[in-house]
């Protein structure tokens, strides 16, 4: 029997007046996935996540968490950070976690142990007694993850968890999320703008635009789509001569600047050796001929064009 998805959204629509924030969204996060939820600003990612977790009403659609559509009870299996995590500033980091633990049904020694565990997991034990109001942004983000981990969730929903962090903070959060997924076996749904990070971290990706899911699949599937267009990057000692030569080759399209000063070309069916021979035949001294790999950014730009 197939395993019940961690999160299953069907036909979710949410309007704000005449504005449709999310329209007829279908999304499935399987157990074990690290699912990247992508989309430009205002695409409806946060609205979709809020509706999925029951923070806001749905106009239509159903949401199931581990097969259960009673979200209140099912939330015991879910930890979430929606936008910037908020804390009671007058309470210590530890007290904030104790609050969350009590609301998750923990108490007594088990609660204390759980707080110690999550503090250690996010490396905040030493600062746990300090007031949360004095925490840096990176520490707040880590405390937010610690709070989301209270009670041992099976699904972690992270909405832009690296927003506003410096490179070191981003790296810490990225490594922590990866470790939670790989070592703790937690299913992760992460919404982010950082496409390279999502590509490196996630196995499945959904791309949302104007409230609709435009593409969904494994990272490998999305990267392979359209990869047979014969896009190559060519370097030459004289780039002017290269551009002039390319203009004279039938079936080759100049796509402009590529990486490391190379020229990006779409060759269609023309094999690389034939392209090389024609360029050399026109006196171009070719220094590099690299088949261009699509990355998630290319896919994202195409889908959201």
């Amino acid at each position: 029997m197939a395993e019940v998805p961690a999160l299953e959204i069907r036909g979710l629509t949410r309007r704000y007046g005449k504005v449709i924030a999310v329209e007829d969204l279908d999304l499935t996060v399987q157990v074990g996935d690290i699912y990247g939820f992508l989309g430009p600003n205002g695409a409806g990612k946060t609205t979709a996540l809020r509706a999925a977790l029951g923070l806001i009403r749905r106009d239509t659609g159903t949401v199931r968490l581990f097969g259960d559509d009673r979200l209140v009870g099912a939330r015991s299996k879910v930890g979430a950070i929606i936008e910037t995590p908020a804390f009671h500033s007058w309470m210590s980091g530890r007290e904030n976690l104790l609050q969350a633990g009590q609301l998750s049904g923990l108490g007594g020694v088990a609660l204390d142990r759980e707080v110690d565990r999550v503090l250690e997991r996010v490396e905040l034990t030493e600062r746990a007694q300090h007031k949360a109001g004095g925490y840096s942004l990176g520490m707040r983000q880590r405390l937010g993850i610690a709070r989301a981990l209270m009670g041992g969730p099976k699904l972690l929903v992270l909405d832009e968890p690296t927003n506003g962090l410096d490179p070191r903070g981003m790296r810490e959060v990225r490594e922590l999320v990866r470790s939670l997924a790989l070592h703790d076996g937690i299913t992760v749904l992460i919404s982010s703008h950082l496409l390279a990070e999502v590509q490196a971290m996630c196995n499945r990706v959904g791309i949302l635009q104007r409230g609709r899911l435009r593409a969904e699949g494994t990272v490998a599937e999305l990267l392979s789509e359209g990869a047979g267009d014969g896009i190559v990057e060519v370097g030459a000692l004289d780039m002017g001569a290269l551009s002039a030569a390319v203009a004279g080759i039938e079936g080759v399209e100049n796509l402009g600047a590529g990486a490391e000063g190379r020229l990006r070309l779409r060759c269609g069916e023309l094999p690389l050796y034939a392209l090389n021979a024609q360029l050399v035949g026109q006196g171009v001294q070719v220094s590099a001929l690299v088949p261009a790999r699509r990355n998630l950014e290319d896919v994202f730009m195409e889908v959201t064009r």
Partner: protein
Amino acid sequence: MTLAAVTRAEVYKLFSRSSSRAGLLMVVLLAALPPILVLAARLGMGVWLGPDQMFNGLPVSEYFSLPGSSAQVIALRIRDFFVLKALILLLAAQIFAGELQARTLREDVLRPVSRCSVLLAKWFALVAWIAAVSFLSWGASAGLGLVFFGWGDAWQGPILGLFAAVVGDAGFAAVALAASVLTRSVAATVAGVFFLAVLDYGLDWVLWLMKMAPMIPHEYGKLAGQVAEAAYPWMPFSAFALWRGFETGSWGWQGAITLMGMTALALVVAIGAFRRMDVP
């Protein structure tokens, strides 16, 4: 997930707020002040006039006395002073609208706990705070009066009045919490409840004037007087002043019904609005 566990968390949170601690301390100190002042006056008089100055067969200083039974009445009067109501209103605004604005309410709603439980826990926490303030201020005033000036006479009425006052303020807290949910703003909650209080005060005056109407030599005057007499005990101002009746031994059951009705209505409205609310 039990309501008791959510309430425990909410009580801890409320009592750790500096505003609730400062408010509690202020009310207790205010209640402790009268016996201290009376004692100071007695000692001062004793020093100033000397111990032999008599009036009506008693040393003058003996007239400055506030025994425990009287001091507790003073504590009741002080807790009814607007300071406590203002503190309840401020805390009710902070624990819902304030948390909504600070986005911390979202973190509660993300937990496996119903919105009904979240809101009821907030109300229970407010009631716990009201009870703590009331009993501590009563204890401070009555205790000091007892130590400085002895037992005095009647204790039962004021103690019943104290319990009734806690129940009355619990009703006020429910109304304030409902305003906090409906307005979603700390400032609007304070303004809205203040407006309601002014309306209540105005209604009190209108009915009081209507009670005088039978003096007008007209059949409508008599009718207005009858209407006012019948309506008066059912009004919110009578409900919130229920404790006075307990203190004096003549409480009106109509006020108790109004108080229960208002409390239940406020909680039902608040829970209904919160369940439909988008939490940012």
